[in-house]
């Protein structure tokens, strides 16, 4: 099929004002009717490339041709008008509005001065029947599951007449069952003649549905392949520039004394919803306890309760025998708790401060780091250099602003800071989200080292592969309750876990209570 490509990008570059070169002379071409994967480490420039195609960012240099004609998108509206649609990693929907409202937002069919709702509902129904994306047009978006919301996003793009669909990490928040369904729908779209760009970290999925793969590394294209002609191993080698082992040999370890003991945790939010319904568990020295669950089932509230930022949580939480519930963040940190937050941009780092400044936030208060009233600069410099070396952080110097690093390197800074404090308890929330394979591996290995040193670790992750591979034991959170406990995570399959996460299969209360270890 050596016809002229549908979309062709030649020699495109993008440099951000903070000096990050996200794309350097990238070429990319899309053939009509294919599912084309873009894979690459985080910071490899996938998202930037897509944002340029969708008109969200303007390229610094280079040109883009659609159907052989030169185009320049100044805004997403330009891209939409040219038949390009994008489904973002984080949904762009108005939760309080209905599906139909969201669908027609900004392109409302009218009758006189009014919105023609009947017509809108009809359009939505027709479209959802045609592409087999079953959805109730009158449901409120906030009541939908993540999988359903994604269907709305896809329909939203289709109703605007998109022929090229860009999906940015569409499976990141889906359960295995939902992923499978999504794939069927993508195949259907392909049969209808749509062209799909599929961005993902998960090579298995890429192999399963994509026709061609473009591999990116460090802002450049590493090559374009027919999917059938490359193996997962080859892809990951091209992505990171070396072989990656996706399995960890943890070795057997008997967990020690209890470190974190949570009992009868209850939290009722402002809308009187019981977000945490009497949950309890124990983590022991040298144990990694994983908590799996679909987003929004109480994980973030649980973490906030443990880290001192959820006023109103009831129950008891102790670390090393001392109660921490309701204490200040500083008190909790002083008792040996470290926390890798889910959102490194919001909480985990101060963007325009230097790498060194971001590394010392756990330490700067300590006596050893100060000389009289002044901070000990030599110690800070030596420490920062050592961490950059140890965690292989790609940076020019410790004085560089952390905002200039790629996502993966920024995350390494966060992990370094939290781990080097030698905590008794480490709470790791999505520690490798949006991070490349190489960085993820380094982070996982560091977690396993900490485990070997006797640290108790709580791991929350939406990445099933990660949670199954790294955890010793597993709890599943569903609707604010634990619905399953697996003392040995290595015996659990993704399918079993998926069913528990969807609340389809529940264990008895006695089985779940084993997590308390009394």
């Amino acid at each position: 099929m050596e016809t002229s490509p549908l979309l062709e990008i030649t020699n495109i570059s993008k440099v951000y004002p903070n000096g990050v070169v996200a794309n350097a002379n990238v070429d990319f071409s899309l053939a009509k009717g294919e599912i084309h994967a873009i894979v690459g480490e985080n910071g490899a420039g996938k998202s930037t490339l897509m944002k340029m195609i969708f008109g969200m960012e303007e390229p610094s240099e280079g040109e883009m041709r659609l159907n052989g004609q030169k185009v320049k998108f100044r805004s997403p509206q330009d891209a939409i008008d040219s038949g390009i649609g994008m489904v973002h990693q984080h949904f762009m929907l108005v939760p309080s509005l209905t599906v139909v409202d969201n669908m027609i937002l900004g392109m409302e069919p009218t009758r006189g001065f009014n919105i023609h709702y009947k017509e809108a509902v009809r359009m939505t129904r027709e479209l959802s029947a045609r592409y087999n994306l079953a959805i109730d047009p009158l449901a409120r978006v906030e009541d939908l599951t993540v999988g359903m919301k994604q269907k709305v996003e896809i329909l939203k793009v289709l109703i605007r007449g998109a022929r090229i669909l860009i999906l940015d990490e569409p499976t990141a928040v889906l359960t295995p069952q939902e992923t499978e369904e999504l794939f069927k729908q993508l195949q259907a779209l392909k049969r209808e003649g749509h062209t799909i760009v599929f961005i993902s970290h998960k090579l298995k999925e890429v192999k399963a549905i994509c026709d061609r793969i473009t591999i990116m590394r460090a802002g450049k294209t590493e090559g374009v392949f027919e999917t059938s002609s490359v193996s997962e191993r080859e892809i990951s080698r091209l992505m990171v520039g070396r072989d990656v082992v996706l399995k960890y040999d943890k070795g057997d370890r008997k967990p020690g004394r209890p470190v974190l003991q949570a009992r009868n945790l209850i939290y009722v939010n402002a809308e009187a919803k019981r977000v945490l319904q009497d949950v309890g568990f124990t983590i022991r020295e040298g144990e990694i306890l994983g908590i799996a669950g679909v987003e929004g089932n109480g994980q973030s509230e649980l973490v906030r309760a443990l880290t001192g930022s959820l006023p109103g949580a009831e129950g008891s939480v102790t670390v090393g025998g001392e109660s921490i519930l309701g204490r200040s963040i500083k008190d909790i940190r002083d008792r040996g708790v470290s926390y890798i937050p889910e959102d490194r941009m919001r909480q985990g780092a101060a963007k325009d401060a230097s790498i060194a400044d971001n590394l010392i936030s756990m330490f700067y208060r300590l006596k050893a780091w100060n000389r009289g009233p002044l901070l000990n600069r030599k110690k800070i410099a030596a420490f920062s250099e050592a961490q950059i070396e140890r965690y292989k952080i790609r940076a020019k110097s410790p004085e560089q602003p952390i905002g200039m690093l790629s996502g993966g390197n920024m995350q390494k800074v966060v992990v370094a800071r939290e781990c080097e404090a030698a905590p008794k308890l480490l709470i790791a929330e999505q520690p490798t989200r949006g991070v490349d394979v190489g960085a993820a591996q380094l982070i996982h290995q560091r977690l396993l080292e900490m485990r070997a040193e006797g640290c108790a670790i709580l791991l929350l992750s939406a990445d099933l592969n990660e949670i199954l591979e790294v955890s010793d034991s597993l709890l599943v959170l569903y609707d604010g309750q634990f619905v399953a406990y697996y003392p040995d995570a290595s015996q659990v399959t993704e399918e079993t876990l998926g069913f528990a996460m969807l609340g389809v299969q529940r264990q008895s209360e006695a089985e779940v209570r084993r997590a308390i270890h009394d």
Partner: protein
Amino acid sequence: MIKAAHFEKIRTLAVILIALVLTFLIIAIISDDPLRTISIFLFEPISSVSHLGNVVEMAIPLMFTGLSVVLLFRTNLFNLGAEGLFYFAGIVASTIAIHWTLSGWLHPIVAILAGALTGALLSAIPGVLKAKWNVNELVTSLMFNSILFGVGLYFLNYKLRDPQAFSNSSYKLQPSALLPHLIPGTRIHLGLILALLCIVLVHYYMYRTRWGYELRMTGSNRSFAEYSGINTTKVIITVHLLAGFLAGMGGSVEVLGMYTRFQWTSLPGYGLDGALVALLAKNNPLSVIGAALFLAYIRIGADQMARLSDVPAEMISIVQAVIILLISAEQFLKFWKTRMLLKEAGIRE
């Protein structure tokens, strides 16, 4: 080769250059003898020791208020209250200079400290409101400017006013309270040393101490600071206290260094100028020195120009407006930075 890292400095210089070119253009249009007017504007401030003294004298209050605003802006607090604090502290220092009798060297110290402490305490009010209840500090601080001006004017009219004086001004400040002048032929006073000392102290405080670290982190990302266990409520209140202290000290020093009576019947404007100084200094304490001197220089130039030529001093407001506009405009010269970055990355020759 010019590095992208220096971009901000180059940009600031470019902005100043553009503003100056604009000044010349305006002068060329309205003046009958543009060349002479321009040379007055440019060179009159350095034509004599006394004029040079004027530049430094004017830079002193700008250094205090600029430094005060730098602390606030650096903590991401958009507080413009230095104006009212500066004025009110001047009233407090004058009161002590007029009504108290103290031995020579103690008198100005007490007066300045009283003004500075008043500034700190008054500044704490918007600070506490912001830290505890997230009340917008821009709104409260601007309202406080009006309140403090009104209250200060009341004190001037009913408590300090000298009925013998021709204008609306206070009794004479006692000579024992006045700051000694440093250089003969000018009015450059001891306040200069004090201002420079404060600048160096704030520099060390901000970059070298753990409290300065907390301040910078709170300013850069308050969520991150809180997540790290920093008590940001405390940081915000502390910064307000320090900033108020400096603004108050500026007002006291200005009155005791430059005047023999308190005679401001309107807000003197140094507080808002402090925001301009902070903007030019890119929120760096040490750069406040240069920024304050620059601003003072073009003001004295404009004053001389008004006196010796046919162009009014108000022209300088246009220049300042252009500087503020261009420095705040993030897109200005961005294309050039992009080009430098591409070059550095080796994408473009």
